[in-house]
C-alpha cells in the first residue's frame, strides 16, 4: 500500500499537540478582545465572531487529524511535554500532552462535532440575539464555547490525572456558564440559574470522589502520570488490592457526576435550560462522555479490580434502563433527549465497566454523532416553532383565531407540535436518521455500537445484558413516540402550522452529522478486517482489548425487540389515533394516550420517579434545615448572640466597667479629686486674707516690717 508507506515514512506532527488547546484559546481571546468591536459592525459582525470561534475549533480539528495521521505511522504515540507545571519535592507534574490512539479519538470527536455545532450555533444564536436584543450575548456564547473546547482538549490530552482534573473542572465550569446562559429566564426568573447551580453542585459531589481517587492514587503510587501508574498497578494489585478498589470506586463517583449516572444524574435534565447547541455539544456529545473516557483511560486499573468492574457495569446498566423509562413519560422534546442521553451514557459506562472498552468508546463516538444530530435537530424544531409562533402572534388575522395562547406557549412541548414533517423537511429527515440510529436499526451507526455492547454483555455480565436490552426496547419506544408526536399527524397549534425551516447555516451541519450517523458504523464493523477502531485502540489499551465478536442471535433479538417497540409506539401514537385522542375536549382527555393503559405508572414516569422530590426530602431539605440551624442557632444565636455578644462583649463590658468605675473613677480620680479639693479648701481659707482693702495690705507690710526689724534688733 503506497499510502500507508507514505504515511509511515512521512513526517510526524506530534509536536503540534499543544495547538489543540492553543487554537480554541486564541479564538476565545480574539473574541473577548475584538468581539464587541466586530459585533458593532451590524449584520456581518455576528457571522465574523461565529466564524472566528468555528475556525478556532476547526483548526483544532485539523491538528487532531494531523495527529491521527501521525499515529498511523507511529501507533505507539508520543508524549509532548510543553512545560513544567508543579514541582514539589519528588512530585513533578509536567504540562504534557499524551498523544495516543485513545486520546486522539476523543480529540477528533470533540473538535469535529464541536466545529459542526459551532457553525450551527451561528444560525441558532442569531435568533436568540434577534429575540433578546443584546448582541454581546453572541460573543459571550462563543467565548464560552471555545473555552469549553479548550478545557475538553486538556481533559482528553493530559498525560496525568492532575491535568485531566484541570480539564474536568474546566468543562464543568463551561457547563455551568452555558446552562445559565439565559440566567434571567426560567421559572420565577431564576429557574435557569438554579439549573446551572444544580449542575455545578451535583458535579462538585462527583468531583469530590474524583479528588479522593486522585489523592489515593498519589498516596499509593506516588505519581499522577498515567504510564507510571499503570506500570506499577499489577504490583500494587497483588500487595494492596483494597487501595485499588478504593481508587476505582471513588473514580466511579466522579464518573457518576460528570457522566450523569445513578445517583447523580439529576443535573442533566435540568441542564437543558441552556441553549440547544450547548445541550448538543456539552450535555450529549462530549463533556458527559468524559466519565467514559476516564474509565477507558484507567482501563488498566479497572481490569485489576473485578469488584469495581461489576459495580461500574451495574451502575451503567441500571442507569440505562432507569433513564430510558423516564424518557417515555416526558413531553419536553429536549427532556426526552436528555434522558435518552443519560440512558446511552449508561450503555457506555456499562460497556467500559465490563471491560468492553472498545465497544464503549465506539458507542461514545457514534453517540456523539447521532445525539448531537438529534439535539441540533430538536433545536431546529424549537426555533421553527418559535418562528411560527412569532408569525402567528404578529398576524392580526391569525391572532384572532388563537385567543389565549400568548406568553405561556412552550415551543419545547411536543404536544404543541405535530405535522412538522411537511413544514421542516430537512429537519425531519435528519431527525429520523438520528432517531433510527439511536434505536439501533441496522445499518446505521447506533446499531453497530450498541450491538457490540450487547454482544459483549451477553457473555460478560448477564444481568447487565438483560437491563441493557430492556433499555433498548424503551429507547425504541420513546424515540418512535417522539418522532410521531413531533413530525407526524396534523399540526396541533397554529405555531406548528406556521413553523418554518431553519436557515442553511443550521441545516448543513445537520446534514453532515446525518451522513456521519449513517456511515459512522464503518469505524468498527464486527467483521473480519473491519475492526478498525479495535485495532486502533489496541495500541493504547494494550492487553485489555479483545476483538468484539458479532453474535447473530443478539443482533437479531435486539433488532426484533426494537421493531416490536416501534409497533407498540405506532399502535399508541399513530397519527389517526393520536388526532382522535387529541380531538377530545382538553378537560376530559388525559395528557398522553399511554395513560389510559398504565395510569399511575405513567405518572411515576412523568414525574421522573419523584427522584428530585426524594432528593429534596432526604438530602436537600434536611441539609438546608441543618444549615439553617447551624446558621441561625449555632452561628447566630449561640456564637453571635450568646458567645460573642453576651459572653465576650458582656464580660468585657463588665471588666471595663469595673476598671472605669471602681478603679479609675473610684481610685485614681478620687485620689486626685480629693487632692484638688484639699488644695481648694486650703485656698479658700487663704483667700480670706486678700480683702481688697489697701490698708489691710499696708498693715500687713507694716507688721511684716516691724517683725523683721524686731527680729534683726533682738537677735
Amino acid at each position, binding site marked *: 500500500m503506497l499510502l500507508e508507506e507514505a504515511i509511515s515514512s512521512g513526517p510526524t506532527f506530534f509536536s503540534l499537540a499543544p495547538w489543540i488547546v492553543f487554537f480554541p484559546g486564541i479564538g476565545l481571546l480574539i473574541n473577548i478582545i475584538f468581539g464587541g468591536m466586530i459585533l458593532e459592525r451590524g449584520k456581518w459582525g455576528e457571522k465574523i465572531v461565529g466564524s472566528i470561534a468555528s475556525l478556532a475549533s476547526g483548526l483544532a480539528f485539523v491538528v487532531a487529524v494531523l495527529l491521527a495521521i501521525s499515529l498511523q505511522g507511529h501507533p505507539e504515540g508520543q508524549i509532548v511535554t510543553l512545560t513544567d507545571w508543579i514541582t514539589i519535592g519528588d512530585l513533578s507534574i509536567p504540562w504534557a500532552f499524551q498523544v495516543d490512539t485513545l486520546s486522539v479519538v476523543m480529540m477528533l470527536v470533540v473538535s469535529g462535532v464541536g466545529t459542526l455545532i459551532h457553525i450551527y450555533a451561528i444560525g441558532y444564536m442569531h435568533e436568540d440575539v434577534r429575540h433578546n436584543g443584546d448582541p454581546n450575548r453572541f460573543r459571550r456564547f462563543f467565548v464560552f464555547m471555545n473555552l469549553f473546547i479548550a478545557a475538553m482538549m486538556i481533559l482528553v490530552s493530559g498525560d496525568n490525572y492532575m491535568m485531566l482534573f484541570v480539564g474536568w473542572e474546566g468543562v464543568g465550569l463551561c457547563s455551568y456558564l452555558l446552562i445559565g446562559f439565559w440566567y434571567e429566564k426560567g421559572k420565577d426568573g431564576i429557574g435557569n440559574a438554579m439549573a446551572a447551580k444544580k449542575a455545578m453542585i451535583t458535579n462538585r459531589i462527583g468531583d469530590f470522589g474524583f479528588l479522593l481517587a486522585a489523592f489515593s492514587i498519589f498516596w499509593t503510587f506516588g505519581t499522577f502520570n498515567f504510564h507510571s501508574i499503570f506500570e506499577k498497578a499489577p504490583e500494587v494489585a497483588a500487595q494492596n488490592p483494597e487501595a485499588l478498589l478504593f481508587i476505582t470506586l471513588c473514580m466511579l463517583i466522579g464518573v457518576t457526576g460528570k457522566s450523569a449516572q445513578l445517583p447523580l444524574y439529576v443535573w442533566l435534565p435540568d441542564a437543558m435550560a441552556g441553549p440547544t447547541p450547548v445541550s448538543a455539544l456539552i450535555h450529549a456529545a462530549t463533556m458527559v462522555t468524559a466519565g467514559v473516557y476516564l474509565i477507558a483511560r484507567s482501563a488498566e486499573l479497572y481490569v485489576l479490580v473485578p469488584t469495581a468492574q461489576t459495580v461500574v457495569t451495574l451502575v451503567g446498566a441500571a442507569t440505562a434502563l432507569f433513564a430510558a423509562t423516564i424518557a417515555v413519560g416526558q413531553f419536553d422534546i429536549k427532556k426526552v433527549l436528555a434522558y435518552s442521553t443519560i440512558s446511552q451514557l449508561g450503555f457506555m459506562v456499562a460497556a467500559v465497566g465490563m471491560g468492553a472498552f472498545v465497544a464503549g468508546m465506539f458507542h461514545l463516538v457514534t453517540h456523539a454523532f447521532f445525539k448531537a444530530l438529534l439535539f441540533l435537530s430538536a433545536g431546529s424544531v424549537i426555533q421553527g416553532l418559535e418562528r411560527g409562533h412569532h408569525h402567528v402572534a404578529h398576524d392580526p388575522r391569525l391572532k384572532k383565531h388563537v385567543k389565549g395562547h400568548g406568553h405561556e406557549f412552550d415551543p419545547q412541548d411536543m404536544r404543541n407540535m405535530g405535522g412538522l414533517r411537511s413544514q421542516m423537511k430537512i429537519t425531519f429527515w435528519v431527525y429520523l436518521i438520528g432517531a433510527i440510529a439511536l434505536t439501533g436499526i441496522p445499518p446505521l451507526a447506533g446499531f453497530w455500537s450498541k450491538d457490540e455492547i450487547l454482544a459483549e454483555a451477553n457473555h460478560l455480565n448477564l444481568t447487565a445484558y438483560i437491563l441493557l436490552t430492556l433499555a433498548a426496547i424503551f429507547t425504541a419506544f420513546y424515540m418512535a413516540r417522539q418522532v410521531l408526536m413531533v413530525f407526524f399527524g396534523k399540526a396541533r397549534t397554529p405555531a406548528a402550522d406556521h413553523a418554518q425551516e431553519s436557515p442553511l447555516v443550521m441545516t448543513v451541519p445537520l446534514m453532515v452529522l446525518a451522513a456521519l450517523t449513517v456511515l459512522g458504523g464503518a469505524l468498527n464493523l464486527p467483521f473480519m478486517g473491519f475492526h478498525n477502531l479495535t485495532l486502533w485502540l489496541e495500541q493504547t489499551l494494550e492487553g485489555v482489548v479483545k476483538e468484539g465478536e458479532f453474535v447473530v442471535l443478539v443482533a437479531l433479538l435486539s433488532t426484533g425487540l426494537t421493531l416490536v417497540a416501534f409497533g407498540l409506539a405506532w399502535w399508541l401514537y399513530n397519527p389517526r389515533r393520536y388526532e382522535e385522542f387529541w380531538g377530545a375536549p382538553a378537560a376530559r382527555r388525559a395528557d398522553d394516550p399511554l395513560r389510559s393503559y398504565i395510569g399511575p405508572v405513567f405518572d411515576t414516569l412523568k414525574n421522573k420517579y419523584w427522584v428530585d422530590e426524594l432528593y429534596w426530602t432526604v438530602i436537600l431539605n434536611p441539609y438546608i434545615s441543618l444549615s439553617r440551624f447551624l446558621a441561625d442557632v449555632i452561628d447566630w444565636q449561640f456564637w453571635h448572640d450568646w458567645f460573642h455578644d453576651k459572653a465576650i462583649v458582656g464580660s468585657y463590658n463588665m471588666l471595663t466597667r469595673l476598671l472605669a468605675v471602681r478603679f479609675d473613677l473610684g481610685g485614681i480620680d478620687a485620689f486626685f479629686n480629693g487632692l484638688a479639693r484639699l488644695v481648694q479648701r486650703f485656698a479658700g481659707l487663704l*483667700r480670706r486674707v*486678700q480683702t*481688697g482693702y489697701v*490698708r489691710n495690705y*499696708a498693715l500687713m507690710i507694716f507688721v511684716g516690717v516691724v517683725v523683721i526689724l524686731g527680729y534683726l534688733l533682738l537677735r
Partner: protein
Amino acid sequence: MVPIQYYTALAVLLFILGTLGVLIRRNAIIVFMSIELMLNSANLAFVAFARARQALDGQVFVFFVIAVAAAEVAVGLALIVAIFRSKHNIDIDQINSLQG
C-alpha cells in the same frame, strides 16, 4: 541748738500719724495726705541729721524726695480722679474688687 532727739521724736511722731492715717482713714485724699505726712517726716529726719552731722548729703536727698513726691502727687491725684469718675466715690473701702 535743739537737740537731735527732739527732731527725731517729731519725725517718728509724724510718721506714726501718717501711718495710722493710711491704715485707718477711708477717704482717699486723707490717705494721700497721710502718705505726704510720712514722706515729710522722713524729710524732717533727713534734714535734722544732715544739720547735726554737718553733711550736705541729707539735704540733697530731701530735694529728691520732694521732687519724687511732687510727681507722686500728680500721679496719685490723677488716680483718684479716675477712680472717682468710675465709682463716683473715693472711699477706698469701696474699691476692693481685688479681693480673693
